[in-house]
């Protein structure tokens, strides 16, 4: 009898533990910044933790776990004990942006701030952790720079070990292959660091410069924290290379271009990019008018790419062929305007569109054909920007 009671009690504890470990994710949002009046309409307040229903994929119960200025990109350390967020502002220190380190409470999902440091330039918009675990990589959009910041053994952030700030002539403001009627920026501009990420082998670090239309490949010295340039690949002038994704084997890089809404495929070997075939549009045939792309994801199998179109407000499903070539197979309405990013859950069954201007997260199911189907599930959340699952 006592034994049975103990078993029942154990079962209860296990089931309760189970419930506690249902899928969870962090969502970073755009927030008002008192130093920037243009940000006053942002509806977020920082980083939120949401529960994700295993069956429906629906996120729910958003809880603010870190009040923070515009944490528009976040990433976890390899052991997911630490979370790093950019603060996409130009009001830190001497008109710079900042990055913030948090310790993750694995049980509750709570975040405890460790420290905040300069990001190396204004408006940081992307952050990743180097596979050595020793450095944080940041792309600064308006600052037009890439920075490397040392991660201390306690997870907090140390000194900036390198800042790469491309120079050279300005690029044109409109790409020749943009959609008809695309109303883009009217001014030539300097570099815009939009993404920085190591390749799957961990040997290289890649940076997309959406301003001077180029893709950098570096090697990181994991002692000094210095980036050494391996190659620079020029995009179509004005194309605005923004986010990229690697094939799982690391041999192919897919580069999404913000300003002409196109995707270019590159072979990746020895740290060098070699274009394969012509770029393709992420928009339906015959689309005219304005659009900018934002996020690009690849599924686990490496068979489908998902590109986000802002203004057309769709998720482009692009099938990867046997030769690594890509083909647009579908455009699915995001159900809310300005998808800032997309996320696939760890099981690969669900895809989320973070609709910045609609202030919601829309849930899609990925079917056998790889095309996202809207599940009817919305979660209201002010100006969402990025979503990262907590393993």
């Amino acid at each position, binding site marked *: 009898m006592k034994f049975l009671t103990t078993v029942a009690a154990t079962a209860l504890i296990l089931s309760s533990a189970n419930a506690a470990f249902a899928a969870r994710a962090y969502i970073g949002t755009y927030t008002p910044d008192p130093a920037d009046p243009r940000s006053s*309409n942002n*509806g977020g307040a920082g980083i939120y933790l949401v529960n994700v229903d295993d069956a429906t994929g629906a996120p729910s119960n958003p809880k603010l776990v870190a009040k923070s200025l515009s944490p528009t990109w976040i990433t976890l350390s390899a052991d997911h004990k630490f979370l790093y967020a950019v603060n996409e502002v130009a009001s830190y220190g001497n008109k710079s942006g900042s990055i913030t380190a948090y310790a993750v409470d694995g049980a509750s999902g709570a975040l405890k701030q460790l420290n905040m440091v300069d990001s190396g330039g204004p408006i940081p918009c992307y952050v990743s952790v180097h596979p050595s675990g020793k450095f944080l990589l940041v792309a600064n959009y308006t600052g037009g720079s890439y920075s490397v910041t040392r991660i201390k053994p306690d997870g907090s952030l140390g000194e900036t070990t390198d800042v790469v700030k491309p120079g050279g002539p300005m690029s044109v403001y409109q790409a020749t292959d943009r*959609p*008809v*009627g*695309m*109303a883009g920026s009217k001014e030539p501009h300097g570099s815009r660091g939009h993404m920085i990420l190591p390749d799957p082998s961990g040997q290289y670090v890649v940076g997309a410069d959406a301003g001077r239309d180029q893709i950098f490949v570096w090697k990181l010295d994991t002692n000094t924290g210095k980036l050494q340039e391996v190659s620079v690949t020029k995009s179509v002038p004005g194309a605005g290379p923004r986010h990229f994704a690697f094939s799982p084997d690391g041999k192919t890089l897919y580069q999404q271009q913000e300003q002409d809404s196109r995707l270019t495929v590159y072979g990746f070997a020895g740290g060098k990019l070699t274009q394969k075939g012509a770029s393709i549009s992420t928009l*339906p*045939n*015959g*689309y*005219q*008018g*304005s*659009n900018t792309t934002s996020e690009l994801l690849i599924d686990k199998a490496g068979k489908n790419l998902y590109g986000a179109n802002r*203004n*057309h*407000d*769709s998720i482009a499903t692009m099938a990867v062929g046997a030769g690594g070539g890509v083909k647009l197979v579908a455009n699915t*309405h995001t*159900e*809310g*305007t*300005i998808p800032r990013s997309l996320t696939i859950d760890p099981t690969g069954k669900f895809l989320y569109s973070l*609709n910045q*201007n*609609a*202030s*919601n997260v829309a849930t899609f199911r990925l079917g056998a054909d790889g095309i996202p189907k809207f599940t*009817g*599930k*919305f*979660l*209201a*959340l*002010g*100006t969402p920007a990025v979503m990262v699952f907590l393993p």
Partner: protein
Amino acid sequence: MSNRKFLTAAAAIAALLGCASAAQAARAYVGTYTQEPTARSNNHGEGIYLVDIDDATGAPSNPRLVAKMLSPSWIALSPDHKFLYANSEILDYGPDKTGSVTAYVVDQASGGLKPLNTVSSASAGPAYIAVHSSGKFVLVANYHGGSFAVIRVKSDGSLGEATDVVKPEGPLTSPTASDSQPGQFAGSDHRGSHGHMIGMDPSGQYVVGDDAGRDQIFVWKLDTGTGKLSQVSVTKVLPGAAPRHFVFSHDGKRMYQLQEQDSRLQAYNFKDGVLTALGASIFTPPDGYQGSNTTSELLIDNAGKHLYAANRTQDSIATIAIGADGGVTRTANTHTGANNPRSLALDPSGKFLYSLNQGGDNIVTFRIGAAGVPQYAGKVLALGSPAVMVFLPN
């Protein structure tokens, strides 16, 4: 005339007719938001464009600028479509810092517009314009200035003096509606009155005005001698709901009111100039929608069986079926194909629907399919910051 000569002549006439027929293919005017020198704006239009419409596909093409002007965000034709009137949705016309209204002569053959004159709209930021069925007055709703104005139309089609300006006052209502969906961040300004639409009922006896700021619907009678509006009724809408655009059933017995802030549609019975709510309001985005949205345009089809409402931010066209009792049920939501639909237009045949996507800088064509639901026709026309589209009858 020999037989041969006759045939040649017939062929020539046929050729001429074919030519004339091609010249009279459907055409439409499109008003756009433009850059304003004195305001911070990021608009991409330049004025009023004329487009050709393909009868078979419905696709608009070949946009040409026929009137360069500041932000003609609403346009209307005179009943004989010899004149076109457009408001400039601006805040700095003349010493009183109002908006303006411009009158044009329509060249029926070319579709060209010749400006006649420009007058003050009586208040700032006019957003809607209609020509009274008498043809003697232009009715204007001023959004920013919060007023409704009546402007005399002279016999040559040009605009005369403002014969009346109604500027509602009284207590403010609420900045948000109690029945808004969760996560509604988009606001409708409620710091004062906002004239958002003014139009006539089908009988032509009444003039109706939406005040999206103080959440009320006015019904007036217009004295077609003096051009003065006399109030018949005022209907209060849910505080914060922001009544924006309305349509009447073709028999004039019902009025459907689209509410901008809470994305809901309310049906009313309309009798003797008085509105009486018919059933509960319905939500225009998909079921379960959370997050921001504001509605914009509302249309009714030729048969009076379907309403089409535009959702901005969720970016869809809601198809709403009208029941035998006049009640309404939302039956579908169709992606507009780009963001921020400022308005919708139906072609005269009722076969095609157009979404004027202000943020997308394009016009997307839909074919009205089974059950009245718009189907994307694969036709997109680039045009900067489009706001309104009006067909020019042949």
